[in-house]
């Protein structure tokens, strides 16, 4: 084992000194993930189109309908009408973020906004989507105030009424406490809507707490949790970083495949072969170096994704499993790449051409979900698809261990078959 480590450390040191190799194994993947992540997220972080909400109107009164119309017109969410069953199913599938149910009696309650029992709404959302739920709370609260379309103007009127009643002395004393309270309340509303406008998603949290500051809540919101069967990525970086990682892994496979060709052409392989090392150990050293590079590159990219781009893996354990499986798979591919060309140039050229095709087919360039369906079918022949899947499964697809086994087993099988084939060809040409 000592000799294998010696070989592997030598190779890692050489990779660190190999500028183009390091570029393809590390810097290009990071650039790729960040660049396309930013492109997909529409120039910033998060929600360009707003959260997808399904609205279920079980009240079917005039005021419930106008409330729904208001929701449909609201910025910050994309609302559609649906019946309750469809809404539940689609939220569970992850097609929509949440649903909002206006129960029977909603219209009647909402007409007496400032007194009596409050109007009640039910929302259904996945419990893990706390940010979206909070934002939805805020938006619904805001909509409940829609009758006062312009609280600022209304407040001015109330203020004017206060001033007028004070000046005339008429009827003033009885109305006065109410008007003072109303004026202060409207002041709060103005502040809240301003906050909502400027702070976006954060404003929604403010709306929730400010509800208490009002001293009353015009709307009661009950939350049901609808656990999504399969969750989507939380942000576009959760898609582009697995792609970037696989680019990095391909860069490692190419670098070490080429390094084996270089060792052959530079004669260092001959020197290794006359040392007391067996061929098996020499190849094991190369394989270990490639595996360690794959793990390191994956680790660095994940660190960048987590620290810099708020990517939150569903499961670190499964992620480690996926990375290990990818390492095994691409060590095998590295071995095959090392026998495709006789010179550094031909091995590099042919190797990258093969990897490019794998990447194009396997979702390394266009994400799998964005592919036309025929291409998605073809993509299963590409190791890149399984490599990405084994990362996405643990990052955001929320795979169970059993679900992870499929892509991981495919990668391990690819590794075993190509390593065996590559080694056989390699030994025959020694």
């Amino acid at each position, binding site marked *: 084992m*000592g*000799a294998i480590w*010696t*070989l592997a450390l*030598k190779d890692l*040191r*050489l990779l660190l*000194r*190999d500028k183009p190799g390091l570029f393809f194994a590390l810097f290009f993947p990071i650039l790729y993930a960040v660049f396309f992540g930013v492109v997909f997220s529409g120039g910033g972080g998060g929600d360009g189109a707003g959260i997808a909400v399904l609205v279920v109107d079980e009240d079917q009164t005039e005021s419930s309908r106008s409330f729904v119309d208001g929701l449909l017109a609201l910025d910050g969410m994309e609302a559609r009408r649906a019946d309750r069953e469809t809404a539940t199913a689609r939220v569970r599938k992850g097609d929509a973020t949440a649903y909002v149910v206006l129960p029977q009696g909603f219209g009647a309650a909402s007409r007496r906004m400032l007194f009596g029992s409050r109007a009640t709404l039910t929302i259904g959302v996945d419990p893990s989507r706390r940010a979206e739920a909070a934002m939805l709370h805020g938006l619904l609260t805001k909509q409940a105030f829609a009758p006062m379309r312009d609280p600022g103007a209304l407040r001015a009127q109330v203020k004017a009424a206060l001033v007028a009643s004070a000046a005339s002395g008429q009827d003033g004393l009885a109305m006065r406490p109410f008007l003072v309270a109303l004026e202060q309340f409207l002041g709060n509303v103005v502040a809240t809507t301003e906050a909502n406008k400027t702070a976006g998603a954060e404003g929604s949290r403010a709306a929730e707490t400010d509800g208490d500051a009002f001293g009353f809540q015009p709307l009661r919101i009950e939350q049901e949790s609808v656990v999504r069967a399969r969750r989507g990525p939380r942000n576009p970086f959760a898609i582009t970083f697995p792609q970037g990682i696989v680019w990095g892994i391909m860069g490692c496979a190419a670098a070490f495949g080429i390094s084996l060709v270089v060792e052959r052409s*530079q*004669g*260092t392989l*001959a*020197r*290794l*072969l*006359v*040392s*007391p*090392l*067996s061929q098996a150990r020499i190849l094991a050293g190369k394989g270990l170096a490639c595996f360690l590079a794959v793990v390191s590159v994956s680790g660095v990219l994940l660190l960048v994704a987590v620290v810099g781009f708020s990517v939150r893996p569903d499961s670190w354990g499964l992620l480690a499993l996926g990375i290990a499986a990818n390492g095994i798979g691409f060590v095998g591919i590295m071995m095959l790449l090392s026998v495709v060309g006789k010179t550094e140039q031909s091995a590099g050229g042919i190797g990258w051409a093969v990897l490019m095709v794998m990447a194009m087919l396997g979702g390394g360039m266009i994400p799998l979900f964005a592919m036309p369906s025929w291409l998605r079918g073809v993509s299963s022949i590409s190791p890149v698809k399984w490599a990405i899947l084994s990362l996405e499964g643990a990052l955001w697809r929320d795979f169970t261990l059993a679900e992870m086994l499929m892509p991981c087993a495919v990668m391990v099988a690819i590794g075993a078959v190509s390593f065996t084939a590559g080694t056989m060809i390699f030994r025959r040409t020694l």
Partner: protein
Amino acid sequence: MLTFAGLTKRFGENIAVRELSLEIMPGEVFGLLGPNGAGKTTTIQMATGRLAPDAGSVDVRGLGAPTRTEVRAALGVAPQELALYDHLTGRENLAFFGRLYGLRGAALRNRVDELLERTGLADRAGDRAKTYSGGMKRRLNFAAALLHEPSVVLLDEPTAGVDPQSRLHIFELVAEQKAAGRTVVYTTHYMEEAQRLCDRVAIMDHGRLLALDTVSALVAGHGGQSVVRIETADGEVRVETDDAAAAVAAQLKQHPDAHGIHVDRPDLETVFLALTGRSLRD
């Protein structure tokens, strides 16, 4: 120490080495002399287990064939094709190869320092090998064969492409190996080198062993007579003789007007010419 028995290697139709049998003795510097394509490198490669012979066998110190890893541990090889990591420094190259042979820690460091010193590379030890001159690379290539103090050192054209100074460095290193009691196999197509360094020389051509003996015995056996040439006013006079001194004295008496004397004593070159009808340098 190193025994070849009926070694044969073919590359397609071309027989690179045919039925080579010889025994290299412990502690001797053994020369493999032959022109390009004679089969020297092929022989070395079979001796190190790098190539499998088509027929015959190699035995190292009675331990068996060098295809066995533990037998290879006794060998130190400096291949004809430079075998170095360009992007590692001289020191890193040596340290890496030393580790492959099981050297670690202080023992490794001391051995690497010693060899850098001995090969005159100490002041460039921290530079990458790719920045070295051809001669420096040759020396590093040689040093890499010596790290583990092997009992048999195989040097395949260790002076190829080096300047006279590097060449002297290498000659000294070979002499040191012999002084340390190691067996050295030295291939070359420079007969001066063979003559100067080797205890015994095997002359090869077209894969065949033509002759094997000490340099003086080869010359005595195959070199023929010395040639004395006297330049006179009416042309050159040529005399073949076993006693060059007597022949010169006789000729000078006969041609007092002689203005030039050449004595061509037989050497390995003449031996090769006699054996093959060709010059070694063709």
